[in-house]
């Protein structure tokens, strides 16, 4: 019987379709058709106020996003670009509400078709609260995240495809979309090409060598402190963690002074005794050596602390079993300790690499990326991120800075993807630890 009724009402005249259609035309109308008057009116009010307040803004924003302005000195390309991106985000929120309106109208209509009574207003509100609760919790953070983290990244992404630099800047000039020109220049124009490749290579060397050194040293020290024969463990640990506890910018500036060739203690007090003078700040090679040593000093305590925590959780029966089988110390280390420690800390170790890749502070505070190099517009110790900083705030090459940022982003994303797979693999192992 019920089946027959449904068949007769199939097609466009079926209530669920009518309700959906009405909501497509005017958000809230479908709800009113469903006799959910209050909800319908609220949605209608939200729609109207959204359109009244945002229509103009979004209209200009989207137009600006495509054209970047048409009248020089009157249209400000950067502000238009920003407005365009904000419009996109607001539009996305609007579409989400619109989609909710459609799904909701259809769901209520289906409930009515099946003869379920409409919930009372109170019940409806409490349902809404239950369903919406996680969204309310997330909303403040989400809005901040979108405007403070995501929007700037989108803006950077957009800049990479414009011709925004010192000589072509609003409000005097209009900007243009130039598609991949900046990226092409980066590998074609000599000065950019040379700089990019030397900075890029050094960034990779820096990331790999400095991070690996700090991990190896941290691991080695953790092993030594963990040795049963060692006493005063607490004191030793506290001293070893000291470089982590001192704010990094303080330590880096101290090192910068220590390595200073005229008054720094390393040349004046230590190396002078062997009659050696090393140009720590003015020779690229020695500056790089100094940077790697300083980063090792700064970074090993974190790894050391991490490993110390994990080492204590290695089940001792595993070692006892190995002893029974006559395992050597080296075998125990290779087959029990290292896998256990790496397994538990891999995501954090990978993060260490990512952090050093973007370790602006040490490069800039130690020597501001100097010494300068002939035929390049980056200093001898600049890594990608400090080069971007210089391009942005010193020479106002915004477009190139943005293009390089995108390349860095792609690299970091590849790294992130690797980490995803690693963590996924951990989960499949069933959380052994």
């Amino acid at each position, binding site marked *: 019987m019920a089946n027959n009724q449904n068949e007769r009402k199939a097609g466009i005249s079926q209530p669920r379709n009518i309700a959906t259609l009405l909501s497509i035309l005017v958000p809230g109308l479908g709800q009113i058709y469903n006799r959910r008057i209050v909800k319908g009116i609220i949605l209608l009010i939200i729609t109207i106020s959204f359109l009244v307040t945002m229509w103009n803004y979004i209209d200009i924003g989207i137009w600006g996003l495509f054209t970047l302005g048409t009248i020089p000195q009157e249209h400000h390309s950067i*502000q238009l670009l*920003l407005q365009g991106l904000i419009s996109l985000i607001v539009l996305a929120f609007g579409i989400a509400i619109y989609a909710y309106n459609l799904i909701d109208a259809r769901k209520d209509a289906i409930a009515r078709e099946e003869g379920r009574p409409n919930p009372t207003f109170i019940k409806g509100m409490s349902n809404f609260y*239950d369903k919406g*609760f*996680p969204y309310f*919790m*997330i909303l*403040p*953070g*989400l809005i*901040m995240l979108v405007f*403070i*983290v*995501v*929007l*700037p*990244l*989108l*803006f*950077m992404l957009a800049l990479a495809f414009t011709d925004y630099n010192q000589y072509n800047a609003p409000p005097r000039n209009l900007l243009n979309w130039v598609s991949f020109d900046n990226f092409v220049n980066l590998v074609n124009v000599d000065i950019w090409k040379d700089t990019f490749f030397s900075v890029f290579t050094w960034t990779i060397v820096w990331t790999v060598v400095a991070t690996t050194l700090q991990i190896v040293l941290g691991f080695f020290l953790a092993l*030594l402190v963990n*040795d049963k*024969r060692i006493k005063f463990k607490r004191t030793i640990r506290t*001293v070893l*963690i*000291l*470089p982590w*506890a001192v*704010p990094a*910018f*303080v*330590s880096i*500036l*101290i*090192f910068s*002074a220590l390595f200073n060739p*005229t*008054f720094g203690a390393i040349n004046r007090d230590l190396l002078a005794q062997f009659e050696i003078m090393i140009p720590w700040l003015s020779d690229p090679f020695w500056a790089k050596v100094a940077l790697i040593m300083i980063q090792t000093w700064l970074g090993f305590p974190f790894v050391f*602390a*991490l490993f*110390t*925590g994990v080492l204590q959780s290695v089940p001792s029966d595993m070692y006892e079993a190995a002893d029974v089988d006559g395992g050597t110390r080296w075998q125990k280390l290779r087959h029990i300790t290292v896998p256990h420690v790496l397994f538990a*800390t891999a*995501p954090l170790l990978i*993060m260490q690499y990512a952090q050093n890749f*973007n370790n*602006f*502070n040490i490069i800039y505070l130690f020597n501001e990326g100097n010494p300068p190099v002939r035929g390049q517009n980056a200093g001898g110790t600049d890594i990608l*991120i400090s080069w971007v*900083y210089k391009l*942005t705030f010193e020479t106002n090459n915004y477009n190139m800075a943005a293009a390089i940022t995108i390349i*860095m*982003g792609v690299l*970091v994303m590849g*790294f*992130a993807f690797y980490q*995803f797979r690693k*963590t996924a693999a*951990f989960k499949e192992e069933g959380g052994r*630890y």
Partner: protein
Amino acid sequence: MSMNRKTKSKIEVTFIYLFFLIMFVIIGYPLFWAVMMSLNPGTNMLVTDLFPDNPTLEHYKWLFTDPKSDYLIWYKNSLFIAILNAAGSIVITSLIAYAFSRYKFVGRKYGLYMFLLLQMFPALMGMVALYILLNTIGLTDSLWGLLLIYLGGQIPFNAWLVKGYFDTIPKELDEAAKIDGAGHLKIFWTIMLPLAKPILAVVALFNFMAPFMDFLLPRIVLTSPENFTLALGLFNFINDQFSTNFTRFAAGAILIALPIALVFLLLQRYLISGLTSGATKG
């Protein structure tokens, strides 16, 4: 034979201690050197001594009493941002983490991926945009603008960390409370928050210390000396005339490093356990 093994072990232990001793010197020397520099009279680095003949506290006195010194204002600014940043980040991240840990909703999975991805992008990557954005809403050279950036930027990493910790709190607890009639917020307030105190302490500590240590964002956002934070102020101290201001810088730096290092050493155990439990189980 056994005698032999014993001496071998003894030699080994001696070498281990020797290695620690070398490490202690490497760790201690730069810090000790900075302390001694701050006790040198005058501001000319060329005539400083590791053990000055007449050590003095004049630089410390200068920081606090000289009318040209903004040190106390910088300290106040840093404290202001640090406290609000710690409090604000706890509220924001714990709400997000609660939703992601305990509720199923549309977009949950992608939200988690987004957090993981965004924590790889430092705020630095969007610095041009941030600067222009703050300019448009009139918050450049403002501590509030800086605070806003810190609060937004910490979300991906900390939400992930706290969510990982929330996941380790048994679900049976909140289900039992639900049966007793507790609402969403009540469960959050009476069950989740008290049990998650260790990780919340970690988040608070990280976000309290960040403004003391960060130098780049303040440099981009803040321009007038009365708005500087400590890190930025001290950097500018020595940036212009490095060799002439280092002794003063050393005094100022030690006064920041000391409290931070103390708090840090006292809380390190919680820090590490929080990090490992939050991040590896994420």
